[in-house]
């Protein structure tokens, strides 16, 4: 209860990472990284492979300690006691091969401080929800890959964590199971739980995340809400489908570049030219416009631009 109250005072910051650095010998895996994660939001932790995502996550969940900087969770310095409030689904994950599903789920729950009687109730509930009840007494080796992933996911949420950290949760998952997991994530979100979601799949991140952090080569590149990141990225793109617009479009003071797609054109506006200006000029020129849409850069575009740039 005390923890809950201090939480409130912390402006709903679930996680605060401050100037964290982690080195392995001569190699710096994470360098001077700082960011906050707000409670009740889905936080996308993005970056190419080897950027330092997993190292950062391992420090957040208390597997390793940072060489410098601090990590605060729920308003407290990270400690083993706080591990019970985190649910962590690692990118590389597995189950005991020759153990019954119910036994390993109970073990994982107990390690998170859930009494075994309570754990049994929750296991039944989750297995039922995932349509896996009949597999309860089966061993891992009897389950398909997809089922095993669902079991791993259950083991992450059994103790009803306040912070859920999912490292590449959808890799290798079939679309039905992806939807399933999305539902659970959405449910966690409505219950004011915080979700950190690490991925290199930008489409998924774009769909799920309210905030993002992009890191590359152990350093922060971008951070903020999805909206502000996109706005800040500031490229002015228009999707246009129109006839008789050639004259206006050829004006170099207005348009920098045109990329033609099958039935529409992607217009890159020149510096300091607003989309409204172009629209006005087009209408004045008498062009027939069937589509005029301001397009935001996709997260994927931002990612590629930032990482390769």
């Amino acid at each position: 209860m005390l923890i809950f109250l201090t939480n409130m005072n912390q402006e709903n910051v679930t996680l605060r990472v401050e100037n964290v650095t982690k080195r392995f010998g001569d190699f710096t895996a994470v360098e001077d990284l700082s960011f906050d994660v707000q409670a009740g939001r889905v936080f996308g932790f993005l970056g190419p492979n080897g950027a330092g995502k997993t190292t950062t996550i391992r420090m957040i969940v208390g597997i390793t300690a940072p060489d410098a900087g601090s990590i605060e969770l729920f308003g407290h310095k990270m400690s083993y006691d706080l591990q019970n409030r985190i649910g962590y689904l690692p990118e590389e994950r597995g189950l005991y091969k020759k153990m019954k599903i119910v036994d390993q789920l109970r073990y994982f729950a107990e390690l998170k401080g859930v009494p075994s009687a309570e754990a049994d109730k929750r296991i039944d509930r989750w297995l039922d929800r995932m349509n896996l009840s009949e597999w309860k007494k089966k061993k891992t080796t009897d389950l398909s890959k997809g089922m095993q992933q669902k079991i791993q996911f259950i083991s992450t949420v059994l103790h009803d964590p306040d912070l859920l950290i999912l490292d590449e949760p959808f890799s290798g998952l079939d679309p039905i199971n992806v939807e399933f997991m999305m539902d659970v994530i959405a449910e966690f979100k409505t219950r004011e739980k915080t979700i950190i979601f690490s991925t290199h799949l930008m489409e998924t991140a774009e769909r799920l995340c309210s905030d993002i952090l992009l890191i590359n080569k152990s350093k922060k590149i971008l951070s903020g809400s999805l909206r502000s990141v996109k706005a800040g990225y500031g490229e002015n793109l228009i999707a246009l489908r129109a006839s008789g617009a050639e004259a206006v479009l050829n004006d170099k003071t207005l348009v920098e570049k045109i990329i033609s797609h099958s039935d529409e054109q992607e217009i890159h506006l020149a510096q300091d030219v607003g989309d409204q200006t172009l629209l006005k000029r087009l209408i004045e020129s008498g062009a027939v416009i069937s589509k005029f849409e301001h397009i935001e850069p996709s997260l994927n575009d931002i990612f590629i631009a930032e990482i390769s740039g």
Partner: protein
Amino acid sequence: MRKFFAVVKHEYKKVVYKWSFLIGTLLFPLLAAMFAVVPAIIFSLKGDATRIVVVDQSGKLESRLRENLSVERIAEKARQAARDSMKDISASQDERLKRGSEQLGGSFVFVDYNSREKPIELVLRELNGKIAENGIDAYLILPPDIDAPNAEFDFYSRKAGDFVTNSTLEDALNQAVRSQRFADANIDESKLRELSKNVNLNTSGISETGEAKDSDSTFIAAFIIGLMIYITLTIYGQAIMGAVVEEKETRIAEILFSSAKPFDLMFGKLVGVGLAGLTQLSIWVISAVVLIGVGMTQMDAMGIPISIPNITPLMIFYFFIFFLLGFFIYASIFALIGAMVTTVQEGGQFSFPPIMVLLVGFYFSFAVIRDPNSSLSFWVSIAPFFAPITMPVRILAEMPPFWQIALSVSINAVAIAILVWLASRVYRVGMLMYGKRATIPEVWKWIRQA
């Protein structure tokens, strides 16, 4: 602490709730029983009676021989032998086995054959013919003059390898010839036997505390204890390694490390598996006590003399203590290896050195059994790595002074503290290193840095 116990419970159940545990637990006493009982059973199996022809060229021996080989006479002799061996505790196990089986073994059926007025060559040919057509199993040729120094007694048998039958026959023949010679020399045989009776020399080992004990059964018990500890330490050490590698290989370690302290995870694993080992040992010790108890009464009832070593509850207590010391020493080494490697196969190569050390300790236990008070026995029974095997063996062979046991326990406890500390350092780093096997310098770096 709660998480630590969760790990202990989990690891314990993982080992004990398995068919292999049940099978292993049952198999060992079964194997031990087989080693102890099966040879005796096999030797006591009664063969078919040997059909024998006696060609008595002297004409004096056959009746005596028949009498000596009669069923009653053989039984009486066996009883006499059993009475002797009760006192004669220095006799080897083999000797006793033979005696025990003789009483049940060889019996003879005499086949009449008329050899009168036939030259010996003809007799041999005819009897060989009978053997060939399975009319008889053996024949015995007694010389005309049994007193001659070069008198030859020839025995031909289809079952020449049946040493029980052969020795029974030999005994009977010897006795018959001896009796005949006494009779020829006019010596009263019963008088002579009475006068030439053996003295009762009781050979017993005397320990330094002055208590007598049975050296032979002690040797066997010490050997079995040594073997039992060697086998359990090897098996449970490897089990630890397998469990560590599995958690590393399947990446479960990552989930575990995000839930509990690495030290709790590793030490909980050692304690859980150790308790499983203790469970198995307890089952063995209890079943051994029961088996020996039942066996004693059984064998007594059958008239087969056996002796058991003098094992006190204190010895059993020490035995468990040293098992646990050995377990934690070798289990932490195997846990360390498990955290270094990426597959069980790789671990197999690395587990060779500790197993060699264990094996050397097992071999040292023979030296300890032979002379429990030598300085070699002293040193190997307090040395870390060896003591878990050699000290229980030494305690069984001859209880050393208490200070030596205490010293041995302390030295090994310190060794455990160091090894567990080393293993936990390697464990917390190594468990998260995927893909490649750690080199020794790397491991050294983890130990220094972690």
